[in-house]
Structure formats: structure tokens, C-alpha cells
């Protein structure tokens, strides 16, 4: 039995194993090489794979991601790190106008096999420009895939899947999970678009992803104590998301709450809720409820951040309200 790893080490191991398996894989980012990454997600990789394949870059997010696209079009499989998801605002052209569209707009001549890894999320009092969850932006863009691993096992397997996937993938980690411990299975299937039933239940479905999985688990425990069996779906992939798994669960429970850390309005949960309201309308016995962040920037102060982040209380209340 292997020792449990931290989430951040599972990321490093996925990168290492992917680089060992395929010489086209390379890493680029700010302080990812000599310093082993600002969150240590690339520790040891410079020594293992050398300075050509593990590159410290200047603070030039826009061109860094653009260069990854160019490298991907010239035979490499770059994995770029954007230190905080908030900084991806500087690189949206490269992601959206170049990486996402190249295959389509060039008539299928090429693929753009690149990965953009970036941490989102609060809980560290990192303030309004270092905590945002912007995954809904990417999910809206045809040509991109978006994945958000919530467990240590998925931090490994889904990153391997993202690197192996032929098209650009945005891998959203949650920085509050980096210290989480767990096991990985290097032979686990590497799937795109498959959700995971985290907990089976019959009374209501909680659809979630990322760090909110843990709030959902706490909520389910508390609901169970009151005799309510909630099913938890860890979506994992946001684009494409696993409609089959979600609809199957709703068909069983007839009640659904979608919970995520991102701002609720116009967030990922909106699409899931909208699809349920159109495609599974007849299965519903109650309004489709969402639990997400309120419509305000995330603030620095402890009280404000704590009030902001969706938690088990709000999930419990929402589930009960679907059962009321």
C-alpha cells in the first residue's frame, strides 16, 4: 500500500509521470522550475526533467499561454500554470480565441493538446483578486474542456487525463485542498466527462464539484442523522459535464441542489439547473435549488470570507427546502 499523498503532491506526481511517459509534455509557468512552484505542485520536476522541459517564465501571462498554444501546434504538449485563477484574466485571448478555436477554425487540421492548470477558491483569506472561481467562463467556450478534481485520487487521474486529451483542458484546482491527504491509483481509468457518485442516496441529489464536495459530505452526514439520504454527485468535469449521471440521479430522487463555491449568479450551477429544468422537468418534485457564493467580490477579512463561502448549513437548508 502506498503512503497517502497530499493533493499537491498528487499533482506533481501526475506531471512527473506524464513527462516520463511522453517526451512532448513540458511545463511552463512562473517559478515552477527552480522554486518547485508557488504551491510546490511542480517540486522536483526540474531536476527530473531538465530546464528545457520545465521552464520558469517571466511574469507575462498573456504571452505565456499564447506560447503554449504555439508550442502545441508545433508538436509539444505544454502544461502551463497560472498561479491564481484570477490572473487568467490576462490570458483570455490565448485560451478563448486561439487554443479553443484553432482546431475548428482550421477545419480540423490540428489539435491543440495543452493544459492550463490554475487554482481557484477561497478559505485562505487571499482577498478579492486571489480567490475567484471563474470556471463558468471557460465552460461557456466551445473547444475547451474544464475539469475540477476534488479528491487526491482525481488530482492525479484527471490531470493525467487532461494531459492525454488531445484538446485544450483547463484544470481547476482548489488551493484550499492542496494540503488534503489521500491515495492515488496510477492505473485508475483516465476519463473525460465522467462524474462520480460520491455517496448514494434516495431522497435528494446534491450535485457539486471541487472543494464544495466536502461541505456536501458534511451536509449529507447531518441530513442522514435526520433520516434524509442525500446522493452526492461529484461532477469532476464541468465541460463536458456528465448529464447521464445527473439525470439518472434526479430521476431517482426527484429533488436536486447544486452547490459550488463560485458566485451563484451565472455560475456553473445555472447551466446544470437549466438543463434539469428543461430535460428532466417531469422528474422534478420540487424547485431546483442552488447554493453558491453571493453576488459580491470575496473579501479579505475572516468574517467576510467565512460568510461568503457556501457551507454545509446552506446545503442542508436547501436540501430540506426541496423536501418541504
Amino acid at each position, binding site marked *: 500500500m502506498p503512503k497517502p499523498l497530499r493533493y499537491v503532491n498528487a499533482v506533481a506526481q501526475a506531471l512527473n509521470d506524464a513527462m516520463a511517459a511522453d517526451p*512532448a509534455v*513540458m511545463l511552463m509557468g512562473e517559478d515552477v522550475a527552480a522554486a518547485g512552484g508557488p504551491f510546490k505542485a511542480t517540486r522536483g520536476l526540474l531536476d527530473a526533467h531538465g530546464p*528545457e*522541459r520545465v*521552464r520558469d*517564465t*517571466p511574469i*507575462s501571462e*498573456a*504571452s*505565456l*499561454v*499564447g*506560447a*503554449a*498554444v*504555439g*508550442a*502545441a*501546434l*508545433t*508538436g*509539444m504538449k*505544454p502544461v502551463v500554470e497560472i498561479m491564481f485563477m484570477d490572473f487568467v484574466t490576462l490570458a483570455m*485571448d*490565448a485560451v478563448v*480565441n*486561439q487554443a479553443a478555436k*484553432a*482546431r*475548428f*477554425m*482550421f*477545419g*480540423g*487540421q*490540428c*489539435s491543440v493538446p495543452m493544459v492550463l492548470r490554475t487554482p481557484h477558491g477561497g478559505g485562505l483569506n487571499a482577498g478579492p483578486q486571489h480567490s475567484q472561481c471563474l470556471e463558468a467562463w471557460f465552460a461557456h467556450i*466551445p*473547444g475547451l*474542456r474544464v475539469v475540477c478534481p476534488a479528491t487526491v485520487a482525481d488530482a492525479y487521474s484527471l490531470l493525467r*487525463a487532461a494531459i*492525454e*486529451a*488531445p*484538446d485544450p483542458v483547463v484544470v481547476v484546482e482548489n488551493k484550499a485542498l492542496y494540503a488534503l491527504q489521500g491515495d492515488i491509483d496510477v492505473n485508475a*481509468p*483516465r*476519463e*473525460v*466527462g*465522467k462524474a462520480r457518485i460520491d455517496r448514494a442516496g434516495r431522497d435528494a441529489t446534491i450535485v457539486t464539484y471541487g472543494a464544495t464536495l466536502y461541505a456536501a459530505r458534511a451536509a449529507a452526514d447531518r441530513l442522514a442523522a435526520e433520516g434524509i439520504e442525500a446522493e452526492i454527485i461529484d461532477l469532476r*468535469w464541468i465541460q*463536458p*459535464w*456528465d*448529464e*447521464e449521471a445527473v439525470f439518472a440521479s434526479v430521476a431517482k430522487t426527484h429533488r436536486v441542489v447544486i452547490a459550488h463555491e463560485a458566485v451563484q449568479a451565472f455560475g456553473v450551477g445555472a447551466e446544470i439547473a437549466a438543463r434539469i429544468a428543461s430535460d428532466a422537468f417531469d422528474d422534478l418534485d420540487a424547485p431546483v435549488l442552488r447554493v453558491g457564493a453571493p453576488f459580491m467580490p470575496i473579501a479579505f477579512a475572516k468574517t467576510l470570507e467565512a460568510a461568503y463561502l457556501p457551507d454545509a448549513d446552506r446545503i442542508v437548508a436547501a436540501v430540506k427546502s426541496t423536501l418541504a
Partner: protein
Amino acid sequence: MPSSAAQADPIPANSIPTDRRLALHRTMQTIRATETTLSRLFADGEIPGFIHLSVGQEAVAAGVVGALGPQDSFATTHRGHGHVLARGVRLDLFFKEIMGRAGGICGGRGGSMHVADLSLGVLGANGIVGAGLPLATGSALAHQTRRTGGVAVAFFGDGAMAEGALHECLNMAALWTLPMVFVCENNGWSEFSPTSTQFAATLDKLGAAFGVPHRRVDGNDVAAVAEAAAEVVEAARGGGPRILECLTTRWHGHFEGDPQRYRNADEIAGLPQNDPLRRSAEALLAAGVEESALAALVDSVDAEIRDALEAARADALPDADAAFRDVYTPTTLTAGA
């Protein structure tokens, strides 16, 4: 830090052999005749969207692209027809693309602003000013890391110099000694504004700031461009990035249909005096090429274009379902919807 190109011993432009000059001339003629044909087609409503033509700038495309080897790559701009044609894209596939036909090189999905031919290392025209710079930087990085021996070229206009991407990419290319050439097509115009009102620096000084050697050439003298391009491309292959600034002229509007009210009539009237095609033809005649040979070349190019256009007109319009299939690459990884 790359050594200074200024110290390199330039091949004199007039040392280019006549058959090579004839080939360059033919490339320019192909570009000119294609662009002129497109201008007419556009006016006649046969081309959807908008197109930016490179009439007057043919020498840059012929000279620079002609200096590249098969392993090399480049990213171009919204005004990219010439570069793609010079690289030898199949003319029928090109016309079909610009006209939005199913058989276009990009299936009619990109059109003029997105012509690409990955099989030839053409990473695409681009609708985003400056976006080709990082693409070429990354391509050069791949050449270096994969040891392909290739060089990547970024074409960009003088207006694009104002984008931060130039700064970021000059820096990365210099830091990493990338095999890359920054080719500025300086036609003096940034859309409807003279670039002199838009950009306070000069490319030679910017290059000097980053330690990237800069050469400026008469971009309407194809032999001069070809010689300079050969030199900078080979220098970049081993010695890190180079800048080649080509002073040239935009004959048409920013896009077809642009009435160019912002432009001085004298300037427009004077353009033909600096016609790269005429200058090349004169040089060829002086080198002993027969007038009739040049006329035959024109005819032969025209015939090729006629055939390509005919094929394009005969081609079907693209089918939406087929297009949808190229949003993602088919993969054996279990995929969702």
C-alpha cells in the same frame, strides 16, 4: 545573448541568381493577381465577411517566406494572404477558403482571417492583432525543445507594435535564445491612423533594449528582403531571435470597401512608383530576362488563378453537421456529451 547581426557579412542582394529572382517574382505575381482577383470578387459580392489585402506588400511575403526551410513555421496576421500563398498553399484550397466553400483549406470555417496550413507550418492568419507573436514564440520554443532545427517567424504589422505581446515575446525569445524571427511589415498604417500617431518607439531601439538584433530593409525590393531574410533566418536558427523590419506600402484600404478618406490623394497616387512588382520586373529585364518571359509568367499565373477560382465556384457550401464534428478531436478517453 545572441550576437549582433550587424556584424554578419551580408550577401549582397544583387548576388541572387536570376532563376531565384524569377521564382520570387512569380510568387509576387501570384500574390498580386490573387489579391486583385479577390478585390474584384469581393466587390461583386462573391466573398462574405471582410478581407484585408496585401497588394503593395508582396515583396515581404515572397522574400521572407522564400527564405524558410520545410521544417520552419510561421504565424501571420489578418493581412496574411501573401505569406500563405508564398508558402505554397494549394491555390484552389485557398480560394475555396476565402469564398467560404466546403473544400477550403479550413473547410470554410475560418475564411480570410484564419487561413492556415499546418502541413506547411503555417499556424494561421489571425483575427487578433498581435496574437501571432506568442504563437510563433511558442512554436520556436517547440523547435528548440524538440531539436527540429526549425525557425519560427512572427509576422506583425506596425500597428501591432503597440500590443504588450511584442514586449513579452521579445523578452521570452531573448531570454531563451529562441530560433525566431520577428518580421514587422511596416506599411505606415494602423487601420485608419498613421502609425506615427500610435507608437512612440522604434523597433530598432526596442530590439536593442532586449538585445535582439534588428535589420531594416526596403520591403518593396524583393531581392533585398530575400537577402536579409536569408541572413536573419539562418542567424536565428542557431543564434537566437532576430528582428526584420520591412518598410512597405499598403495600396488598398484597410479592408476591401474602405473608402480611405483619411488618406492623402498624393500618397495613394505615388504608390505605384514604389511597386515591388515593377521594380522586380525591371531588375529581371536588366539581368537579361526577356520581356516575353515575364509576360508568359503573368499568363501562367493568371491561368492557375482562373482554374482555382473555377474550382472554388464549383465547390459546395459547407455542411453544419460536418463542422460540428471538428470542435473537439475524437479521443479514446471516455468522453461525455
